[in-house]
């Protein structure tokens, strides 16, 4: 191990002698069935990783088609029916089948038990069930797609979805219902695990912030998702029986659906972003060799976001005819929920102060996250502000805003996390310069795609439009060009990560010299993670402890 001061902390074992550990979770058992019936959280994480990547590329393909159609103002590539099906599928797949399970079901599943010093999640069988539910949900979504598509938009607005469309709404609603239970079970598993499976010495305030973030997100999954489930059940029943709890001509209130839908779907935004924030905490700390600035504030801000996240859903309905008085209440609460995010951003930034910073790929993605999430978060304030919301909502401004948060934020964090833990998950490194190139490409492509959309939004271009006035074309062309770059940025990791599985350098236990428990075990880990139950005798992100430990090893070895 080279101790020379360079511009990297990556320390790989001597490649001539190093090898992947003989026994690990990947080769513990062989055969497809051993994967499909596994209870091992790490194998389930891999199953999830494969399936969400699959759906990400399907969702991404739809995004590409949408951008291609919008290259010209005329509705020339596809018919408007098809276009509507495109953005509906893009939304449903990206939200319910990619973003919601992305970090929690892959990285969270893989890492939470290890970070807590546990052998597995509390309910391995339910964990596996959760993946099967996800697969069933995904299959139903694909079925809805193959049978002819859905054109409700991912929001299922009533009475459009209940009485005015004859596409496969029920199939899609069932898919989301079932995928929702996958998410509930993941969240439930995490909460129980975090409460009950911590190793000796692992107090709440010694847990990595990644775990805190997942704890907060899990609370949202468990409490929010069932409300979406019942809203979708009512939509399905209303379609089947033709009755009208959401139909004004029969005495129902269409806004009731909006309330129930957004009661989940707003917190869902935090389900998507919180785990990403957890990833950023780990990465920033590791590559600046410093404990997170104000650990407690960052930990509690996760919980605060989760809590406040439940009180703001009506800001999706400000112009929909809700009471002005309650709009005031919800607008005020929306402003409050923005504060914990600001705390996080500045705490991360100050973590760098007096650090010893290196710029490996995960760190580049994290910097990207911080910049883009700041823009995404602050443009959210525009939409939380009542008067501004009137002009901006339902335009491309809101499209740009939530893509900054979801794609600029969550997807960047997801990629940061994948690159960060890839050596742990597979035991191998990816090509560093290529991955840096991908990170930069993604960042540039992202900004080119979505910055013009803010301007389009203020100009008034409505979302979900198949054709648009010709004066908006220049900005749309820029956006489509950006999407192409972005597409390349996402393809690259696919290729080199796959390549690295066979040809990547052997990573060793702790290539980043990180402090988490997961880095103290072999890569890839054993099936039961630890040979013996670890005892946590130091704070999270304690780099002095790590230095002492390394020194001790060096002296005992030679």
């Amino acid at each position, binding site marked *: 191990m080279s101790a020379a001061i360079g511009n990297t902390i990556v320390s790989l074992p001597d490649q001539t002698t190093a090898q992947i550990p003989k026994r690990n979770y990947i080769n513990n058992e062989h055969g497809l069935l051993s994967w499909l019936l596994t209870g091992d959280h790490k194998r389930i994480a891999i199953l999830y990783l494969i399936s969400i990547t699959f759906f990400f590329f399907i969702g991404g393909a739809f995004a590409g088609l949408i951008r291609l159609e919008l290259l010209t103002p005329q509705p020339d590539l596809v018919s408007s029916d098809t276009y509507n099906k495109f953005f509906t599928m893009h939304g449903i797949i990206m939200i319910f089948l990619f973003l919601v399970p992305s970090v929690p079901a892959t990285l969270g599943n893989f890492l939470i038990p290890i970070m807590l010093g546990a052998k597995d999640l509390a309910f391995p069988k339910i964990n596996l069930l959760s993946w099967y539910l996800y697969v069933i949900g995904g299959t139903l979504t694909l079925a809805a797609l193959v049978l002819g598509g859905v054109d409700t938009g991912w929001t299922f607005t009533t009475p459009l979805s209940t009485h005015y469309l004859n596409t496969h709404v029920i199939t899609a609603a069932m898919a989301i219902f079932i995928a929702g239970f996958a998410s509930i079970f993941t969240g439930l598993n995490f909460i129980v695990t975090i409460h009950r499976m911590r190793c000796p010495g692992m107090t709440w305030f010694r847990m990595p912030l990644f775990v805190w973030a997942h704890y907060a997100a899990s609370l949202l999954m468990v409490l929010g998702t*069932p409300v979406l489930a019942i809203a979708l059940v009512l939509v399905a029943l209303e379609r089947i029986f033709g009755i009208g709890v959401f139909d004004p001509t*029969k005495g129902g209130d269409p806004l009731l659906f909006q309330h129930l839908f957004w009661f989940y779907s707003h917190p869902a935004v935090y389900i998507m972003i919180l785990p990403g924030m957890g990833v950023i905490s780990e990465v920033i700390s590791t590559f600046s060799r410093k404990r997170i600035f104000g650990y407690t504030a960052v930990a509690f801000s996760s919980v605060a976001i989760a809590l406040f996240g439940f009180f703001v859903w009506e800001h999706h309905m400000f112009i929909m005819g809700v009471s002005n008085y309650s709009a005031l209440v919800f607008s005020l609460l929306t402003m409050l929920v923005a504060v914990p995010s600001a705390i996080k951003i500045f705490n991360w930034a100050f973590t760098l102060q007096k650090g010893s910073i290196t710029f490996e790929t995960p760190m580049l993605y994290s910097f990207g996250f911080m910049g883009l999430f700041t823009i995404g978060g602050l443009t959210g304030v525009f939409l939380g502000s009542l008067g501004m919301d009137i002009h901006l909502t339902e335009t491309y401004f809101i499209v740009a805003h939530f893509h900054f948060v979801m794609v600029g934020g969550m997807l960047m964090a997801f990629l940061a996390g994948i690159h960060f833990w890839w050596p742990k998950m597979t035991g191998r490194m990816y090509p560093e310069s290529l991955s840096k190139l991908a990170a930069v490409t993604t960042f540039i492509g992202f900004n080119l795609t979505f910055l013009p959309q803010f301007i389009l939004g203020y100009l008034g271009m409505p979302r979900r439009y198949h054709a648009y006035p010709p004066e908006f074309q220049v900005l749309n062309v820029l956006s489509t060009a950006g999407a192409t770059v972005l597409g390349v940025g996402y393809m690259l990791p696919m290729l080199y990560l796959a390549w690295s599985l066979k040809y990547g350098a052997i990573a060793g236990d702790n290539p980043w010299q990180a402090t988490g428990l997961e880095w103290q075990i072999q890569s890839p880990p054993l099936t039961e993670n630890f040979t013996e139950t670890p005892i946590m005798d130091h704070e999270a992100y304690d780099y002095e402890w790590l230095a002492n430990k390394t020194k001790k090893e060096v002296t005992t070895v030679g």
Partner: protein
Amino acid sequence: MDSALATTDPNMPETEVHAEHEHVALPQHRHHFETEEQQREAGSFGMWLFLLTEIMFFGGMFFAYLLYRNWYYPAFAVASNQLSVPLGTINTAVLITSGFCMAIGVWAAEVRKKGVLVAMLLLTTVFGLIFLGVKYDEYHEKYELHHIPGDSFNTSMFTNPAGYGIKEEPLAPDMAQKTQIFFFLYFAMTGMHALHMIIGIALLLWLTWRAQRGDFSSGYVAPIENFGLYWHFVDIVWIFLFPLLYLINRHPLH
């Protein structure tokens, strides 16, 4: 690797007990828990969290009920009066009895009385089935009266109660239409409740089979306890549904 197949539990994929965990006494102990106490607490905590999601699941419908009851109170009152209070009360008692049997069953498992446990599980099932039978009867009556929401829904009983021999104030036609919302909520809520009971009964039969095989006679009672929580939760939902749906306005106003 030393591994012994744990014989009893089809519930878990992990059936290995590793050599380094020799302090593990019971075969049903999962390898990844340190102690049985931890396993038991995790199990019951998990079950409670699941019930939390169930509260929110029914919560959405309860809110819809609250809203429309306030908007269309006359329709709700009259429609509610078409439900049978005797049947509803009997059914409540039946369900409480079923819950009581379940509770005794949990006790029997805890004190390791296999015979009592099996008997109680069977009684719980029987009372659950009686409840569903009565519910079916009530549904059937509504079907015959065309009170199932949908195209065949008929409001004439509410606009012209005298013609049906019912002592009610006639509703204006627009308000009478709103009885459909009541019946929709009635069927959605009791239907969702019945669905939970059907799932519960399926689980009960499986647990009964395992109980008589002796799975729960050696101090391992977590499945029985956790199922008990589920079954009692279903009871609680009904405890609220009964007054809300059956007893909106049973007293003569005039």
